[in-house]
């Protein structure tokens, strides 16, 4: 039998390389108008008065009064208005759309709308807790009674911007009674369900279509629901096609970002071992809660990292502040926690005068161990072999010994991590309830009908390849179009490293049935998500199996720090991953490079901060993502470890590859400068502070 992992050329290469692939900005419709957003200029307060200019013919203003349904965006926690009515809770909060045929006139109109505010003192400190979680494992805090020593450290992580190269955008247009949106999105049904609620329409009267997506990384998970709703409200009223495309500056200052975090860790030490951990995580939601509770959960669940600790006391808070709302970003809470925990365990080992690598290896999760919530790591854990491979490829042992000698400013660091695949907890079973369809037509063509989008991660290729392998037919006879909610069932959002494992798993089940019935001329197979019966999770008390499967990773990063400027020069990176089974090896290697690049950027380069609620980085010029000059050679090795419910054994891969980058580079810098690192990004300024502070 052919090995499915053997790479094929991606099916959308030609259209993307030639520039003929249509992204949302590339669409033009007859009589199309443009929309621009009028935003608040204060961080907190109330609108007292709005003075509108005389609108020329053919120009419109759309605000909260036009929202015929519920003026709130449907996401997990519903606290985000489509348009604010009065209350302003962050800078640049959307107040209205200004719509018309000429963008220059729209700009003038935006400037001439005068808004008077009653300003209040905005809150930027983390004091307004809106979510408070706590759980214990084993003896919880009581384990500290048995400790002969306690070690405590605090870790900080900053904002991170998804920085997809294609800014956010939609075109909305009427189709009879229907309001249709086409846009750059990860989750067609999130947008559809949000729009239904906002415009108060029946299911059949809202249609959402995905255009080619120019990168997303979580940034097009929930945010598009907001602008999609605004545009749908406008289309329903004006009944003309309207295009809303963000410019980069607008995109960067108003869209959701990775939550900044603070994690306080305490270790109970006995006989030079960690016998228990206490952790408290704080994250900044910004002005709306949205997905923040789920982000916090994912962070808390990963509290002991790739290690097993029998006694845990875990808590966390989501704080609301008068800043831009934060949201989904590849990793979803895990990058914050894996940075904190992997640094902490290393720091504890150093303080106990133990070899950090040996100390960590002894604590590694093994098959059959209990998770932080007393679930089970059921499947084989290959971390010891993976670490060995990474060590061998990178010559880690020799290098760490050489580089630990003072004054050479060279360093090497290793991170160990995992990612829980799919939605946290009972999300798949209770909330998403994914459905997929596979259709065979008279010409023996097979259509994949799912709502999972290709946003660059290669689903168009890997889904078609999966089905062609299972049915043993040519990939050309397997058809997959960009999802259109009029034609595809709700297979859930394209998030949480669930696409191949969950949606692909359902497609594989459908294909199995289709194969049996292949002689039938024309038919559809539908499959619905069924939770593996061993999975049980109590979301309220954090008890049980939070994820059906885990993907694992090891990153080793080598750096050189300039002794004068403290600039960090990446030399090389080595990665070893267990993502079950690659459906296409080259696709996975591409994910591995890109994920690590984002993780490394998060760790040392990507500075984003706000001053009085205003994001200080406006564009790619001052929000620095890695260029080809910044990055280094990256060698990646994949270990097969098939998961019973994934197609051909595939688990999640997209998010996994981002998680280890920050702790690996932070440790490499630590090794190079001989000082412990407690926050990311590790900028030259921070390195200077560490070196000068003894």
């Amino acid at each position, binding site marked *: 039998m052919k090995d499915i992992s053997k790479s094929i050329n991606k099916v959308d290469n030609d259209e993307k390389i030639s520039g003929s692939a249509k992204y949302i900005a590339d669409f033009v419709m007859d009589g199309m108008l443009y929309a621009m957003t009028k935003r608040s200029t204060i961080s907190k307060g109330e609108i007292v008065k709005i003075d509108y200019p005389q609108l020329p013919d053919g120009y419109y203003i759309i605000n909260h009064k036009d929202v015929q349904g519920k003026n709130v965006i449907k996401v997990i926690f519903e606290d985000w208005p489509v348009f604010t009515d009065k209350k302003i809770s962050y800078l640049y909060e959307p107040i209205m759309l200004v719509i018309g045929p000429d963008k220059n006139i729209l700009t003038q109109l935006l400037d001439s709308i005068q808004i008077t505010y009653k300003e209040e003192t905005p809150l930027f400190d983390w004091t307004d807790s809106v979510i408070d979680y706590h759980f214990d494992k084993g003896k919880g805090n009581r384990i500290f009674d048995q400790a002969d020593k306690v070690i405590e450290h605090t870790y900080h992580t900053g904002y991170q911007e998804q920085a997809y190269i294609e800014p956010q955008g939609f075109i909305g247009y009427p189709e009879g009674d229907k309001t249709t949106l086409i846009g750059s999105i990860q989750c067609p049904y999130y947008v559809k369900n949000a729009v239904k609620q906002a415009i108060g329409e029946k299911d059949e009267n809202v249609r959402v279509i995905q255009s080619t997506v120019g990168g997303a990384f979580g940034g097009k998970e929930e945010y598009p629901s907001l602008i999609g709703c605004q545009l749908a409200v406008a289309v329903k009223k004006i009944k003309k096609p309207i295009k809303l495309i963000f410019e980069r500056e607008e995109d960067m200052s108003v869209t959701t970002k990775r939550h900044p975090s603070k994690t306080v860790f305490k270790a109970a030490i006995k006989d030079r071992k960690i016998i228990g951990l206490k952790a408290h995580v704080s994250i900044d939601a910004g002005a709306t809660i949205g997905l923040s509770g789920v982000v916090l959960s994912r962070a808390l669940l990963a509290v002991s990292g790739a290690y097993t600790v029998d006694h845990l006391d875990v808590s966390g808070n989501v704080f609301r502040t008068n800043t831009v709302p934060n949201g989904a970003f590849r990793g979803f809470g895990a990058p914050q926690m894996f940075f904190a925990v992997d640094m902490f365990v290393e720091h504890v080992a150093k303080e106990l005068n133990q070899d950090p690598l040996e100390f960590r290896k002894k604590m590694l999760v093994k098959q059959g161990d209990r998770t932080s919530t007393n679930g089970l790591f059921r499947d084989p854990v290959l971390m010891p072999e993976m670490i060995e491979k990474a060590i061998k490829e990178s010559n880690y042992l020799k290098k760490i010994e050489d580089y630990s000698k003072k004054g050479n400013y060279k360093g090497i660091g290793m991170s160990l991590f995992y990612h829980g695949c799919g939605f946290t907890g009972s999300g798949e079973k209770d909330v998403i309830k994914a459905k997929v369809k596979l259709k065979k037509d008279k010409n023996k063509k097979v259509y994949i009908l799912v709502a999972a989008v290709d946003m*660059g991660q290669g689903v168009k290729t890997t889904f078609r390849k999966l089905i062609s392998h299972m049915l043993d037919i040519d990939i050309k006879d397997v058809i997959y179009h960009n999802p259109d909610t009029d034609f595809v069932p709700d297979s859930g959002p394209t998030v949480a490293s669930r696409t191949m494992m969950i949606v692909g798993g359902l497609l594989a089940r459908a294909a199995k049935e289709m194969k049996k019935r292949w002689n039938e001329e024309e038919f559809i197979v539908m499959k619905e998500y069924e939770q593996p019966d061993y999975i049980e999770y109590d979301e309220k008390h954090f008890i049980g199996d939070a994820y059906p499967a885990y993907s694992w990773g090891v990153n080793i990063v080598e750096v050189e720090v300039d002794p004068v400027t403290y600039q960090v020069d990446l030399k090389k990176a080595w990665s070893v991953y267990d993502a079950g089974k690659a459906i296409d090896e080259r696709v996975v290697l591409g994910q591995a490079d890109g994920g690590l690049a984002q993780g490394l950027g998060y760790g040392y380069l990507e500075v984003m901060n706000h001053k009085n609620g205003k994001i200080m980085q406006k564009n790619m010029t001052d929000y620095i993502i890695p260029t080809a000059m910044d990055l280094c050679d990256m060698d990646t090795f994949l270990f097969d470890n098939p998961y019973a419910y994934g197609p051909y054994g595939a688990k999640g891969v997209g998010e996994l590859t981002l998680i280890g980058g920050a702790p690996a580079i932070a440790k490499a810098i630590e090794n190079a400068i001989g000082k412990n690192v407690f926050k990311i990004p590790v900028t030259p300024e921070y390195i200077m502070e560490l070196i000068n502070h003894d």
Partner: protein
Amino acid sequence: MTEIKFTLNGKKQILNTDPNRRLLDVIREDFQLTGPKEGCGEGECGACAVLLNGQIVNSCSVPLANVDGQDIVTIEGFSSTKQYHVIKEAFAKAGGVQCGFCTPGMIIATQSLLSENPHPDDYEIKIGLSGNLCRCTGYNLIIKAVKTASKDGDGLW
């Protein structure tokens, strides 16, 4: 309004328009060539890259007045050349394409680089691509693609 003459993808064009308009807008709006993309609008990301007299420029940062009498080639025009096909195959083979938004710009950057330096080393490739941002690939496989193109297309540049 000013009369601006230039060559676009091999055809002579005369436009009567505002000379301050961005070349990118003219290409996309007046000629419906949507291969060049707007990623940042300030010459940082390279998604809008085109060839100006054979050299890469960010079309979002070029006022139309500057191209009077010059030769412009976009990805659409470049895609009919032999060099394009070598570069295309190399990108496909290496796995250098993910979301695709930066890709036309990367192809233009590759052409611009190879036409100046047909056998670049890794460092020269990195410099050649450093004006084009990609958020998906980490550049590793794009660099591999450029190396492959340089080798497979030996003699073309």
